[in-house]
């Protein structure tokens, strides 16, 4: 049987990808942001996931304003790194796991989550930056990836509670897949940041760290944080943190923290990162 063995969360700031691609990760500005991922890169080598279900948001890349799916799952054989306006990142093509992805899609719909199914899609920095942070610069990504895209751009995004419940339903779907697979769920985006208007540059380290605290243990209080609190406390783009709750929901009743990292700034944003396992 397939099983969820761990959850990972991290920011997906495009500038982190640029720093990796241009070999700048040792520079004084970037080194502290990257230092907190060394532990995880080593841990992933031992953890050897077969599949990562990677929860992220598209940033006006695969989806424009024509179609705005709230929850969409990528069921393709592969997903190419997108040209976001300055040429595609020179990172490996992302290999999907269509059998598991279609199984999860069907299971979620039967479980009353009305998913959008994607059979062709390019993936942007929201998906490829976390892969670079966790796996470095390999010739091939070391595992299959199932992209799970969440709308956090056009309001209203799904509630935190709905994201958590989706994670719980993903766990049920994975557990009913007959093949023996080691599956991780990653939640990406955040932490506090605002990329627009006179309030741009907002960072709330205290709130972010409370959120990191709340992911560990058996509390489910985070699922009830309303959108307006993310907006007021963590900036207009801090809402991306609802995607971390899909990961947390998928880990079940309680978690243990294996690793945690927080650094300000990377470009306009607070970098947050946590590795959890279900208990």
């Amino acid at each position, binding site marked *: 049987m397939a099983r969820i063995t761990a959850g990972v969360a991290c920011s997906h700031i*495009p*500038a982190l990808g640029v720093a990796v691609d241009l070999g700048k990760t040792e520079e004084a500005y970037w080194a502290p942001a990257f230092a907190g991922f060394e532990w995880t890169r080593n841990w992933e080598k031992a953890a050897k996931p077969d599949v990562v279900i990677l929860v992220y948001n598209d*940033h*006006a*890349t695969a989806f*424009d*304003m*024509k179609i705005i799916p709230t929850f969409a799952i990528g069921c393709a054989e592969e997903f190419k790194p997108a*040209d*976001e*306006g*300055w040429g595609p990142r020179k990172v490996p093509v992302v290999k999907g796991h269509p059998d598991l992805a279609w199984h999860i899609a069907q299971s979620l719909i039967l479980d009353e989550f009305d998913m959008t199914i994607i059979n062709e899609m390019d993936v942007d920095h929201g998906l490829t930056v976390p892969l670079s942070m966790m796996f470095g610069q390999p010739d091939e990504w070391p595992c299959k990836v199932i992209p799970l895209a969440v709308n956090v*751009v*056009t*309001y*209203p995004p799904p*509630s935190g*509670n709905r994201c958590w419940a989706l994670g719980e339903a993903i766990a049920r779907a994975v557990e009913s897949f007959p093949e023996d697979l080691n599956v991780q769920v990653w939640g990406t985006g955040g932490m*506090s940041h*605002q*990329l*627009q*208007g*006179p*309030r*741009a*540059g*907002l*960072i*709330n*380290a205290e*709130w972010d760290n409370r959120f990191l605290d709340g992911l560990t243990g058996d509390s489910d209080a985070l699922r*009830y944080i309303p*959108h*307006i609190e993310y*907006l*007021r*406390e*963590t*900036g*207009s*783009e801090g809402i991306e943190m609802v995607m971390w709750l899909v990961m947390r929901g998928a880990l079940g009743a309680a978690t243990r923290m294996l690793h945690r990292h927080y650094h*300000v*700034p990377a*470009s*306009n944003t*607070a970098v947050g990162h946590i590795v959890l396992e279900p208990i």
Partner: protein
Amino acid sequence: MTGPTDIHNYLAELEDIPGTRVFTAARARRGYHLNQFAMSLMKAENRERWKADERAYLDEWKLDEEQKQAVLDRDYNRLLDLGGNIYFLAKVFSTDGKSFLQAVSTMSGMSLEDYSAMMIAGGRSPEGLRSIKGDN
């Protein structure tokens, strides 16, 4: 389900954040063609035509005159008011060779140098910037 949400109260609260334009349905509708124009700059051949004659390229799109002028002026705060979304507008400033840090600093009314220094010092505090009504 956490119980029904009052949509009117929900939407009113989104307008109660200082210096922030949340990308609501109203803004998404206002800015539809503006954002789709920006999206078109993802393609290299469109970027070339845009760079050759910005005004002529804009005239191919159903933007109103205010939106066109704000694009030509690269007035990003105005573009947010006119329904632009930052991830779409990013195609415009990326085509100009500008980073998120550079473009975002222009919206904050700060120089790039001052804005970068603020970020390195821990960013802008939410104190006093949470709510217009609550003044906190």
